[in-house]
């Protein structure tokens, strides 16, 4: 645009903005002196001013702070990290980047996770994370992602794990409807993984749909055991904490809240006395009911209505009461109950 033309447009725009909508029309009619293009441009500016709302009103840092802190470890394709050759980027998350890599010694595919430096700077936290990740991996449970190696290349900490073909539960839920049976099938597997870990004294602390991988053959795998240790000093997000805190130190519950089926529990250890984990499932199944459930019991009823022949709903309804008596008392109990 020519600066002179722009100057005319903005002058008229500023003038027009001092007037009410009706007078504005008359003003532009007169001021543009039949210059239709000029008038069009001023009107376009007024229109977008009216529509712009809070556009640019929050500063860039407030809107996208992660673009200022960006601390991607940034491996490149073909690079060798440890004895793993990077093949492609699989995903980026708050806890690091995950690459598909080839183990050059054993010639197999691995998922290589590079942890962001801000999470690994603290030695104590890092060593606690390693201890937990190793403990969970040592369980050799079919529903727990196997960790091959935890290592470092320069400043970069990495975790090599088995590579899973499939998608996360989050991605699967995003793809659309999941029926109750499929949801429960996953819930049982996840509960079984958590129970095994729980028994070995390992608490996940960050169970969420992003951390559950679904294999095409129906296996669900829980990822990232121990990784919450890296952020433990931070105030945890309440969003993923569910109900049963306080005295019920070993309680695990299933509840249907906010349109989602939750599997939750508390840690066995006093210091980890918050949630053992929580699993959000069946959202799309519930969504088909058309209304947003408000309270757990009613949600369960609604679920029952949707699937009247489903025996599982009775089970859910019983434990959705969220009372210590009716709740199944450990993740193991939940898995067995199925």
């Amino acid at each position, binding site marked *: *645009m*020519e*600066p002179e033309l*722009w100057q005319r447009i*903005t002058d008229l*725009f*500023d003038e027009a*903005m001092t007037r009410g909508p009706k007078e504005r029309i008359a003003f532009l009619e007169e001021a543009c002196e039949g210059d239709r293009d000029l008038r069009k441009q001023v009107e*376009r*500016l*007024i*229109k*977008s*001013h009216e*529509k*712009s709302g809070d*556009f*640019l009103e929050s*500063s*860039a*840092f*407030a*809107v*996208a*702070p*992660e*673009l*200022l*802190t*960006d*601390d*991607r470890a*940034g491996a490149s*394709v073909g690079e060798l990290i440890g004895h793993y050759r990077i093949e*492609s*980027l*699989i*995903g*980026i*998350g*708050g*806890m690091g980047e*995950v690459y598909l890599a080839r183990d050059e010694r054993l010639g197999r595919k691995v998922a290589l996770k590079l942890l962001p430096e*801000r999470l690994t700077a603290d030695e104590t936290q890092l060593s606690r994370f390693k201890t937990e990740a190793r403990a969970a991996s040592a369980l050799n449970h079919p529903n727990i992602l196997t960790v091959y190696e935890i290592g470092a290349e320069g400043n970069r900490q990495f975790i090599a794990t088995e590579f899973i073909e499939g*998608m*996360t539960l*989050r*991605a699967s839920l995003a793809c659309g409807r999941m029926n109750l049976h499929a949801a429960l099938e996953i819930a049982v597997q996840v509960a079984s993984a958590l129970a095994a870990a729980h028994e070995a004294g390992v608490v996940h602390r960050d169970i969420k749909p*992003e951390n559950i991988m679904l294999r095409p053959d129906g296996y669900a795998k829980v990822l990232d055991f121990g990784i919450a240790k890296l952020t433990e000093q*931070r*105030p945890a*997000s309440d969003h993923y904490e569910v109900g049963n805190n306080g005295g019920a130190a070993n309680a695990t519950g299933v509840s249907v809240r906010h349109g989602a089926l939750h599997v939750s529990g508390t840690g066995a250890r006093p210091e980890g006395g918050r949630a053992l984990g929580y699993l959000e499932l069946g959202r799309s199944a519930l969504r088909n009911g058309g209304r947003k459930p408000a309270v757990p019991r009613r949600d369960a009823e609604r679920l029952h209505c949707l699937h009247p022949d489903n025996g599982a709903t009775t089970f859910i309804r019983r434990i959705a009461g969220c009372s210590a008596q009716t709740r199944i008392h450990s993740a193991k109990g939940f898995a067995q109950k199925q």
Partner: protein
Amino acid sequence: MTAPSPSQQKVTQLLGDWSGGDEGALEKLIPLVQPELHRLAHYYMSRERAGHTLQTTALLNEAYLQLTDKTQPPWQNRTHFMAVAAQLMRRIMVDHARARHALKRGAGAIRVTLDETALVTEERAEELLALDEALEKLAEFDRRRCEIVEMRYFGGLTVEEIADVLKVHPNTVKRDWRAAKAWLYAELTTEGS
């Protein structure tokens, strides 16, 4: 007052050079300022989790205190530092957005996105790149309005502070901001115009 560190002296000198018209000084400032901005951003983000909102002004104020040599009079004016910092913020954030964008393209189709925050960041990165491009366009015919957007959006400066930097009346800043915002909005929402 404690004696300024060599890096504070260097930053202060570069700020002076830059305000004296040396465009190259900005390039030299970025590596000196960026780590501090990173560090502060982490700090503010961890506080945000405890219920604080992210304040660009507070962030840059802190950076100003950490980075500059206060024994030198020209840069005692923190507003001018803010104005420069706004440009630095824009460059740093846009560079990151570009790096993310390139990574995504370079990697081909990302099969799994592990985390909602990652998705959001991708989206913001793209939006920021589009805004940066639109600002470049705006600067071609209206340098001042582009600077106002920079100061306000990237530097978090208030209308009064911007007026102070540009030596104009706050009402002028308000009007210019309104027009710039409207133009950018049209530019970013209208296809192929």
